[in-house]
């Protein structure tokens, strides 16, 4: 009403939407679960980037992590599919409608164990998707068994020791052909947000391995995925500040030794190097870094590898602009003459 007292303008993004419009249902995860912090950063990133949630597809497998898509972007369609198979479901969905933006959330069990094959092939295809692994080194939803990213030698609450070396999903993703590979920590708000925003601007597979402690099952001594351990051993590769194309280039970040990566959509990503000679377009250097830090029992974080111009899978399929989902009978059914011609050939 016109005579209502004026309230301070609600903060909105470039689409005129407030942060709340990017939220999802109430979480049913444990209080303090790293996955919830990641959910928050996803909300922030889509809000800050001003993405239309109706243009987003949310996909997941099964696990505590895979429940997350229900907790952000209520306006987006979501699909909690089966264990380890998010990659194929996402691939199909993006073929049906390549104009969408896909975000897939998985767990280290979902991706590294049962889903390892699909993970490999999604990376190889460079499907345009933000593929987040909420990595807690255990199977949260089934009560804490070791996952393939559990640290060698760490001890579960029941006393069983993990004898196997962890998979390094980032090193694998780089080897397999993903065009954007990063790692962060669920508790590192700033870095995770920057990486997510950069991923939103990238077209191709963005594998983001987010160390995300399971407070219930994996927050025990011996596990490197617990909060305390990670905080001590978290080697930050570089601070990431993202400059989206719809904002002023004038972003606060410290000058210094930077690598300016041109993103797919024309925006730029600046990486502040800690290692003097680090170059995110050099695969070997990235793998080197990952092996080196891993050998020291540390986690490298940051964006390890970017290949902004690598052709993504949907583009390579040379599909018509209208999403396949919306083609009409006329567009998908050749005329009778074609059938006649085919029949003639078989007579």
């Amino acid at each position, binding site marked *: 009403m016109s005579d209502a007292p004026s309230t301070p303008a609600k903060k909105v993004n470039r689409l005129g939407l407030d942060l709340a419009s990017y939220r999802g*249902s109430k979480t049913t995860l444990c209080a303090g679960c790293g996955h919830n912090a990641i959910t928050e950063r996803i909300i922030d990133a889509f809000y800050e980037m001003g993405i239309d949630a*109706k*243009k987003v*597809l949310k*996909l997941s497998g099964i696990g505590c992590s895979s429940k997350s*898509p*229900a907790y952000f972007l*209520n*306006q*987006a*369609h*979501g*699909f*909690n*599919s*089966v264990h380890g*198979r998010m*990659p*194929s*479901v*996402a*691939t*199909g*969905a*993006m*073929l*049906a*409608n390549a*104009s*969408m933006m896909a975000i897939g959330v998985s767990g280290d069990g979902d991706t590294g164990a049962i889903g390892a*094959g*699909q993970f*490999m*092939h999604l990376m190889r295809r460079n499907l345009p998707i933000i593929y987040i692994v909420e990595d807690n080194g255990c199977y949260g939803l089934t009560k804490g068994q070791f996952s393939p990213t559990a640290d060698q030698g760490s001890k579960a609450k029941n006393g069983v020791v993990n004898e196997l070396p962890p998979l390094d999903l980032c090193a694998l993703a780089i080897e397999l052909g993903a065009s954007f590979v990063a790692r962060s920590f669920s508790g590192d708000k700033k870095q995770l947000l920057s990486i997510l925003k950069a991923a939103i601007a990238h077209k191709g597979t963005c594998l983001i391995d987010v160390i995300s402690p399971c407070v219930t099952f994996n927050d025990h001594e011996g596990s490197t995925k617990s909060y305390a351990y990670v905080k001590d051993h978290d080697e930050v590769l570089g601070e990431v500040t993202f400059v989206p194309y719809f904002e002023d280039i004038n972003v606060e970040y410290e000058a210094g030794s930077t690598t300016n990566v041109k993103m797919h959509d024309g925006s730029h990503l600046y990486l502040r190097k800690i290692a003097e000679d680090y170059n995110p377009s050099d695969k070997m250097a990235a793998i080197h870094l990952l092996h080196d830090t891993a050998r020291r029992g540390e986690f490298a974080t940051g964006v390890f590898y970017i290949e902004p111009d690598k052709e993504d899978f*949907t583009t390579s*399929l*040379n*599909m*018509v*602009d209208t*999403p*396949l*989902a*919306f*083609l*009409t*009978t006329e*567009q*998908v*059914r*050749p005329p*009778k003459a*074609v*059938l006649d011609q*085919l*029949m003639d050939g*078989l*007579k």
Partner: protein
Amino acid sequence: MSVVNDFTIQVATVNGSGSQTANLVLLRSIFQMGVPVSGKNLFPSNIAGLPTWFTIRANHRGYIARKKEIDLLVAMNPETAKEDVLSLEPGRTVVYDEPLKLNALRDDLKFYPVPFDKIVAEVCPDAKLRRLVKNMIYDGVLARLLSIDLAEMEKALGKQLGKKPKAMELNGNALKAGFKYASENFEATDAYKIERLNKTAGQILVEGNAAAAMGCMFGGATVVAWYPITPSSSLPESLIGYLRKYRMDKQTGKATFAVVQAEDEIAAIGMVLGAGWAGARAMTSTSGPGISLMSEFAGLSYYAEIPGVIFNVQRVGPSTGLPTRTAQGDILFAALNSHGDTRHPLLLPGSVEECFSMAIDSFDLSERLQTLVYVMSDLDLGMNTWMSPTFTYPDKPIDRGKVLDEAKVRELGASWGRYKDVDGDAVPWRSLPDTKAPSFFTRGSGHNAMAVYSERPDDYQNNLDRLARKFVTAKSMVPAPVVNLRNGAKIGIVAYGSSSFATEESRDQLREQHGIETSYLRLRAYPFTADLDDFIRRHERVYVVEQNRDAQMLGLMKMDLDASLITKLSSVLHYNGLPIDARSITDGILAKEGK
């Protein structure tokens, strides 16, 4: 006196020896002479060097099912020649590679030795090419022996080789050389003869997989995810060819489809469900091992109500089994495919024509029911060459079922729920991403009618009950069986799929040779419609003919039918990996009839 237009030729070779062209030319030349034919390839599960048998049946009455007995054997494979010859009925004819000396084996057969290597050396100077060209010689010999017009053979060869002048010349010469050799060396035989007829006009020759591929193209398939497997691969591979040719947008040259060779069958069905969920007409094609691997996703699709089409070109079980042997062995497993209470509709094409039409219909059915549809073909139907009337262009536009558009969104308003039965047919309205319709979150069974997460017992049970009602609705959407009632027939036969042609032939045998009239119901879909009940009720005894050991379709029938009807049913089964033949059915029925 010679047998005219009613005999079976078997060419025994080694696979990888390039006999396919010769066999198809032989097949087609008979077809061109107006005589109904069919061709069946019995091939091994390797690429080269093992025994293969190509069987051509010519039959003036139009029987195109397999016939057990071979009338004329072309013995090119030393490894099997002896056994092949020994298994012939007396009085039959053998054309063979001279060095094999098969004539020494029996004296109750007619033998025609041909010195293939000698002849080929004369017509093909390049030694490396001789292996390929050699087979054409037996076509020439047969043209002479069977009185097939050599011009028809040359025409068929042209059709087969297209615009390859050098190949045409070489093969044409071999053909003629064979003909010449036979003319000069064999007295004109009267045993078997092809005479011109007028029974193939308006007919085509095609494999079921190619027919299904055409159906997929005209059915508007947009996303195809597949993984190679025998005997399914030629379906998606033909489809790729058709799509690249006929489904590129005229203006932009871009594709109105996406085809992905997935990393395995789990990924293939995952892509199909992802695509179906996001609004594509999505499909995959596989065989039994793939169906097994797709089980988990199949259950999800049933509960989450996602459309998609699975072509199951059946082969015998299990994996590491015999991928090149046919069966109707996945009926039960596909209908029930997944843990928990799950049912899937099956379409049962009984001809290559239905491979085409049911492929088209399967997409509509799947979207209208919002569930996976299995099209149950098999190796015999899919990979063998069948005569068929030309296919009919679809007369209705594509039906995408209950997809919310803006008008419907306005009409339903807040009363819309993804899993709410607003129309009383148990089929809810679905909402696609990237439209004006409301979004929702898709999960398996943990939801209420509004697609909100729920673990409540009543929500779960209500949903299960609605899904069961939806399966009843399916009965009104699936193709009805084809019923042929005979006056006074006490016996009914139920068959389906590739058993159909042999069953029809068997009915003629029963009537003509044994004086037994039978009625016939050809199932075209599961769930069954009331026609099946009616049919059984009308008859005293009903035989269910299938190509599996476990009477699988009968099993499904027993689960659904009233017990009083079940008492009338029994099975005639054929499950040795070869296509079923009429005589086996006839014998099976006679045995059960105590005759």
